[in-house]
């Protein structure tokens, strides 16, 4: 990246709730530092002033759910040197990927008064299904410190440091009491990637799997243990069908129990 000028940053929205791009505005104390490190030239949630591309860094939020967006993402890719997807929607299809397990036509006929005007795809898919992605930042929403880490790494030309282990590691480092063992609470922590700082277990709640599957997760061992403990099949299915329902490991496990 050229040292003479600040890298330019664009923020793009696809099918999403906006929570992840809000994490950038949420930086508050660090926002001035961000603005000092990069030129935010296209961020419609923050400013109407939009500069044309190409951009050095694009942050892409949301999943692909419409034919229009399936085209648009290619234009974003073409105008971006580095494309970073942010959040569960962009990296795994998001909560709206629940449609992947059903019939989207049935849904639109129930939800919309005039479903004939709805043009939508049968599946919600992650950005990486459509274009090459340089880096994926997980979470629902993303963790703002991870976002700052990735921006810092890209600006300084080094590899971002993000965890590749499970939530249990963060839980134990923080000294949380295991909610699964001490409370009998179903917890996706053992199969979910760290990154949130073990937020829910810190409030004695089980992990909802917001950061998606960790590398090589043994989802079957966890699901079988739950089942042996009396958990209903439907509850096992629902546990894996959250914000990362369509992430490969979670999707496969939920389908095994969805009979």
């Amino acid at each position, binding site marked *: 990246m050229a040292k003479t000028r600040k890298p330019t940053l664009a923020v793009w929205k696809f099918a999403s709730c906006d929570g992840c791009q809000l994490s950038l505005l949420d930086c508050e104390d660090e926002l001035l530092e961000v603005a000092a490190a990069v030129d935010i030239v296209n961020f419609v949630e923050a400013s109407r002033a939009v500069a044309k591309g190409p951009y050095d860094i694009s942050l892409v939020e949301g999943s692909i759910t419409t034919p229009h967006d399936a085209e648009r993402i290619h234009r974003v890719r073409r105008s971006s040197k580095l494309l970073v997807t942010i959040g569960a929607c962009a990296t795994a299809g998001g909560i709206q990927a629940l449609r992947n397990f059903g019939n989207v036509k049935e849904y639109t006929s129930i939800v919309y008064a005039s479903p004939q005007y709805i043009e939508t795809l049968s599946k919600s898919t992650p950005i990486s299904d459509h274009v090459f992605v340089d880096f994926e930042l997980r979470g629902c929403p993303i963790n703002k410190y991870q976002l700052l880490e990735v921006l810092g790494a890209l600006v300084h030309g080094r590899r971002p440091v993000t965890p590749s282990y499970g939530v*249990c590691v963060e839980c*134990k480092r923080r000294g949380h009491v295991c909610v699964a063992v001490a*409370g009998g609470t179903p917890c996706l922590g*053992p199969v979910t990637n760290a990154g949130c700082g073990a937020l829910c277990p810190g409030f004695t709640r089980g992990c909802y799997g917001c950061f998606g599957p960790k590398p090589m997760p043994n989802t079957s061992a966890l699901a079988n243990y739950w089942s042996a403990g009396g958990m209903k099949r439907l509850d096992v299915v629902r546990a894996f069908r959250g914000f990362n329902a369509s992430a490969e490991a979670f999707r496969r496990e939920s389908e095994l129990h969805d009979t």
Partner: protein
Amino acid sequence: MTTQGAAQQPDARPPAFLEPEHFDDVIQILRRRGYRTIGPTRRDGAIVYDEIESAQDLPVGWTDEQSPGRYRVRPRGDHALFAYASAAHAWKRFLHPPNLQLWRAQRTNGHVELVADSAPPPRYAFVGVRACDLEAIRRLDQVMMDGPYVDHVYRALRRDAFLVAVNCCDPSGTCFCVSMGTGPRVTGLADLVLTEMVGAGRHFLTLAAGTASGQEVLDELGRRAATDEECRLADASVEAAAQNMGRSLAVDGLREALANSPEHPRWEHVSKRCLTCGSCTLSCPTCFCSTVEDVTALRGDATERRRLWDTCFSVEFSYLHGGSVRLSPRSRYRQWLTHKFSTWHDQFGVGGCVGCGRCITWCPVGIDVTEEASVIRQAVPLPGSTGPMTE
């Protein structure tokens, strides 16, 4: 207390007698002497080790129930102070902090400067160190400061720590210290060793000094000596505990069996159940592995290096050039169990397990190391099982 060799043994005096309602005096004496008192306390449905300001912070009248993958606290219906087994945390979180800044640097006008952290390390008093955990601290000492490679952070914290050990009278369903020869009676060196006698209409503590600084605390406490009868009653409680182990493990030949069984089918069997979450290693009082991470400021004018607890169960743990050498869950579980019960001996002359049972209790799917190790030990060696470890 000072490091082991340097500790002075006081004359053998009878232990002091203490009513449980006056145990707070011990905590206050330690706090007046400048110690941060860390002890068992009840939080989020478990007994954990955390800062305690008075005896009221102890889990008075509470005990635990532990079995594979399950932990519950319940009231005992009395006012016992130490009537439970190993807590959710191990003491290592204070001696070998889970997330520690090693150094930081700042860039000013093109010059990079290391910024020294001038805060002195806290002086800890650990109140309620069970026999298994005392032995675990001794084994961590071997790894972290008694060998050729000294961890200066550990040594600074450890050198100044005051240890109040407890003879364990209430083992849980996952305890096997008797098998490992580490408890329930305290045999290692502690500044004070206490025994709590609850039952038969009696409730009292006996406190014995193990070091000169322990004796100073006892002198300041100024209590009468326990009678022979009181000592006998307290002793009987510890004796009874030895008969109450929830688990057992035959260790004879285990070291060799593990070293010679890298291809045992049991590794595949356990890897089907193992979540590779690392809860066992992170709960273990002797597992010491860590990693380092660099954090740089967005502006590029400051950086810090942090040390974080790591686990051999993560894929990245064994990442070398080109990839992880222990990619399969099978190889990761095998690495851990074999290290604990076999190769730890090769490295440090003792095993890495003290029988506290935490890895069994805190495994989210209840994998029992005593069971896994027993199966390997009992097995008739398979053809070709003495070959080199392969993935």
